[in-house]
């Protein structure tokens, strides 16, 4: 009985190593992109290191031309490292106000994307009237909740 218990412990230990190795090498990574009129720019990325840590904004690339009444084209992408398909609901919010909602899907070990649009008006509204005659510029930031994670993205908008 004693040797059998030791075998059980050994098998459990080996299985534990397998579970940890396989699970730790698999992950999902999300990015948030904004279309600036010429192409997609990544404005937020999830480093998958923590489900509660917010995504880090990417390096500044300049403001997106969008007036107060414009609609911003945005995109959530997923890099699914798990062998099974992923299908997650995401919500986009700004100042606790939901701006968009959707579903992002990706086959196993593949990528997927989901486009959505948000109005530029809330970001300009929070700025208030511009005192100067120059085109207004405002900082926009959004929170995206997906797959139990909280991502955020920030970028600048400039009136055209």
């Amino acid at each position, binding site marked *: 009985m004693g*040797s059998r218990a030791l075998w059980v412990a050994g098998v*459990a230990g080996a299985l*534990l190593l397998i579970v940890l190795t396989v699970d730790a090498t698999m992950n999902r990574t999300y990015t948030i992109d904004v279309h600036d009129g010429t192409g997609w720019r990544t404005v937020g990325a999830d480093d998958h290191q923590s489900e509660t840590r917010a995504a880090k904004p990417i390096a500044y690339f300049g403001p997106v031309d969008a007036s107060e009444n414009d609609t911003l084209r945005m995109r959530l992408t997923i890099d699914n490292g*798990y062998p099974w398909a992923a299908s997650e609901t995401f919500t986009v919010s700004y100042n606790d106000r939901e701006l968009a909602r959707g579903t992002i899907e990706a086959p196993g070990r593949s990528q997927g994307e989901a486009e959505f649009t948000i109005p530029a008006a809330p970001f300009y509204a929070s700025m208030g009237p511009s005192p100067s005659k120059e085109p207004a510029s405002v900082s926009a930031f959004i929170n995206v909740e997906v797959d139990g994670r909280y991502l955020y993205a920030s970028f600048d908008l400039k009136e055209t």
Partner: protein
Amino acid sequence: MSAVNTRNVLVLLGIVMSIIGLAYFAIEFFADLSDWGRVLSFLLLGVMYVALGVHFGQSGDPTEVVERSGWRWLRVTNALYILGAICSGGSVIAFFAVDEIPRVVKLAIALGLGLALILYAARRRAPGISDA
């Protein structure tokens, strides 16, 4: 002859290192694993520690760290069983964090398994106890 059992001191040191490693795992790597990965990891850890406790308990060798009156409570088997219980509790907590299963189902499974274990163990006789 020393009252301190060197072999068991080494095992106890290993247990202490395991406890610290478990705490580090729970804090640093918990979010990196999938929901079911966490459940399986803690479950397998619990099985491993309990099996080691059974092995040391049935090996026939003394399991006390210090073979002296007042210190006999400090046993390798007790420490391993406690570690196994902590890991099993961790697997239950990780199971409650699985989003795919409705919470009522999770509660029913956890309570059902716990009661089933208690009832099964209650019907078994402890080794060495006779009907006389």
